[in-house]
């Protein structure tokens, strides 16, 4: 047993590798996570789900050790008392009502029937499904199903919540609602792991990220710190407006901007070495021009470019 003063971290991976025959799922990852919301970022196939399945004791690591609260999840299911898991799987018992579904699973935590129903109602309210407790899950929209899954993971008031692509396929309203739920959990002091392949989603939830690429741990730390690093690299901002040439004249005088391009009619591409500085001058310059702007995009501000930069190359997409 661990020393009483040395509380083991919620999640601890030491040199963990997992391969499926020839295919590598996770390659030599070491990681310790404790407290707050951590975004697990990576494109499809980066190993996010493999990582989570290792944590959930569904897979046995080929090498290394996995510990949840200091316990090996492959050998014992006892850590799951304190863990809520939202799988990427869409499948649920569609014939059950959400209240049934959650309370049945809550009872597997050793709750009595009444306790389970009470807690289930509470978590359903928490995820914003107050009105549909008694509706069959099969009749729910995708976003509602996703929220039921999250509610089910919260029913036993876990300390560690693992969410595998919870925003995948949700409409914007559900997305916003789920994000606020996750932020709320983080602010309650719980440890939350949330995976996504969309940078922007995670950015809206947390700053603490882990980036996985081809099964390897590519980066870990504060998203803004990583971003600042990236900002020193060439970056593009795409502005759609009526008269791009006029706007370009204003921008080219600004310090952070080192070049402009006109990729298409009514489009201006600004090239910069300092993204945040460029963003700082962006509103004032546009106001100055008095032009009508249809959109502003950061084509390089996605996970692929981020990974591209981290891998050392410049990925212009």
């Amino acid at each position: 047993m661990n020393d009483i003063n040395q509380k083991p971290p919620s999640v601890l991976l030491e040199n963990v590798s997992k391969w499926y025959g020839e295919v590598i799922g996770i390659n030599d990852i070491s990681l310790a996570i404790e407290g707050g919301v951590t975004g697990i970022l990576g494109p499809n196939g980066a190993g996010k789900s493999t990582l989570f399945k290792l944590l959930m004791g569904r897979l046995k690591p080929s090498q290394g050790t996995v510990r949840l609260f200091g316990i090996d999840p492959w050998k014992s299911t006892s850590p799951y008392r304190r863990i809520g898991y939202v799988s990427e799987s869409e499948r649920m018992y569609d014939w059950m009502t959400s209240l049934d579904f959650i309370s049945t699973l809550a009872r597997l935590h050793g709750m009595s029937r009444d306790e389970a129903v009470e807690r289930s109602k509470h978590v359903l309210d928490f995820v914003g499904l107050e009105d549909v407790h008694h509706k069959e899950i099969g009749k729910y929209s995708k976003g509602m199903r996703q929220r039921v899954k999250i509610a089910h993971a919260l029913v036993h008031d876990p300390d560690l919540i693992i969410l595998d692509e919870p925003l995948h396929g949700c409409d914007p309203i559900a997305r916003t609602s789920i994000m606020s739920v996750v932020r709320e959990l983080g602010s309650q002091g719980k440890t939350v792991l949330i995976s996504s392949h969309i940078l922007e989603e995670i950015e809206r939830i947390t700053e603490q990220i882990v980036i996985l690429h081809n099964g390897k741990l590519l980066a870990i730390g504060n998203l803004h710190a990583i971003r600042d690093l990236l900002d020193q690299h060439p970056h593009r901002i795409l502005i759609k407006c009526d008269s791009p040439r006029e706007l370009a004249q204003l921008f080219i005088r600004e310090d952070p901007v080192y070049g402009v391009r006109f990729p298409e009619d009514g489009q201006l591409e600004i090239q910069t070495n300092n993204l945040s500085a460029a963003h700082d001058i962006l509103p004032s310059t546009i106001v100055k021009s008095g032009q009508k702007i249809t959109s502003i995009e950061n084509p390089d501000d996605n996970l692929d470019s981020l990974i591209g930069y981290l891998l050392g190359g410049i990925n212009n997409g």
Partner: protein
Amino acid sequence: MDEKGLSLSKTVWSQLDRKAGAIIELTIRQLRNRMSTWVVLGVGILLMALLLAFYVDSVREGFESIDNDGDSVDMDGDGYPLGQEIKYGHSDYNSDEFPGSSEYVRVSNIDYDDQIRRTSGNFTWEGIGRFDAIWKDTKYSGSSQWEGIIDWNIASNNSCPSGDVYVDWSPEYWGYACYYSDDEFFVYGKFKANGTIDVPLDRSINWGYYTQPFFIEPDLQSMYINEDDIDWNGNLLQSSQGFDDDGDCTRENWSIDNAESAFYFDYSGDQFDEDKNNNGIICDVLWEVDANGDEISSISPDSNVDEDPDDEKYMGESSHRTFIIGVGKMAFVILLGLFLPLFLALGLIRDETENGTLHYLLSKPIHRGEFIAYRLLGYLSVTGSYVIILSLFVGIITALLGPGDEIFRISDIPVWLGIGFATFLVLAAYGSLFNTLGLISPKYGVYVSIVIGVWEFVMGILTIANPNWTLSAISINHWALQIIDSIVLLAWPETLQLQQMSSAFNLETGLDIFWKPPVHTLGTSNPIVAIMVSMFVLIVFTIMMLVVGQSIFKNREIM
């Protein structure tokens, strides 16, 4: 470490009742939501309804008296039933032979090596010789040429070849004759005539006469049905009882007694033996009691004694029991016991994997072995209660309709409960087995299970036919069927006697087909021991399969 952290060090084996309750309930609800569940359960109910219809239609309808020993037939259509023909030593396959018909009586013969080779007289002859006829019966003819009766019209026109017979020529066929001169013939066959015959050396001839036919009133065929009832005074004593009412064992006043002939069989197909049971008393029935002296354990009749009892007197009760035992063994243990698990247990965990819902259950603080056990309990609570309710339902109906003076045959209910219980154990054993097979190989488990199902079916049938056969003990059915056999003996002790009577006296109730005394009594002949042994085997098997299943599942990676 905080309070929650401390609680982690404890085992996950806590609050098992709540977890078990949740998974059992979930399993029941899942089964309830599956179409195949209702189809299988519905088919089971339909099967029982059909069997009940059969019961009402035939088992309950009393019994037509049947000819248990088969002697009421008249195969040759001469108007005399077999039983009467046997008394007179006649065959029932020849319409020329019947009681009172004219019979051939042999007088004497000249053998191939006799010194005197000539004789004369008016007889029916059969053999070879040179015959000097005084009178010939030209009308004597048989029904076929194979009888070899000489046709004098042909013979008179057929002069014998020159030379010596058997030197220069030989007769062509049995029934051949030719003439030498007026009224002197060579004969080779059967004929009726008056005259003198010379028999060549190394040939022979028989002669005799036919008796005058006389009339005997043919018996009614119905006289040979139920003509030899079981004579038993009801005393549970080891004793010689029984009496040959129809006289086909004692054979008094029979005109011809074939008892010594090796070809004379009794009704059960054995060589006729008037003291077949070897108790020194001819034509009786030996009733033997069991070790406790409270049950007739064996009945051995001598040949043709009490062999054609009054069916109705014995059939009602026996048939009722046969129905219950047959339905319990075939419909409940073998069919329901096999098909319910095949449809409902095989996918208990496999389906969750396929549906992608397994992770909800496995990401909970439950041991995987615990999970399998609760799933099986859920399945068992559905199928088990179904089987128990169904058996009680059928039981109550047959107890109301069954024979006997009581309005409700209360003694049937323990038997039905026993059938339900035996089926329940089978459901547990197969459920555990098939579930484990589904875990070992999600893809091929179903095929292996079907192969095992066929094996079990065959072994079940063989166990019913002969529970002593060792090979059939390598099956789950075998042990469950033992439980039914044992419970029958406990609830209806006199079944042993009914079964002995039905096999000893040829009562076609099927009781001796469907029921045999329990075998696995460890030499005690005590049905309770057999139940204990069978329960032990089935429960140990179930737990073993559960352990195998959980040890496989525990180390399975779930993608």
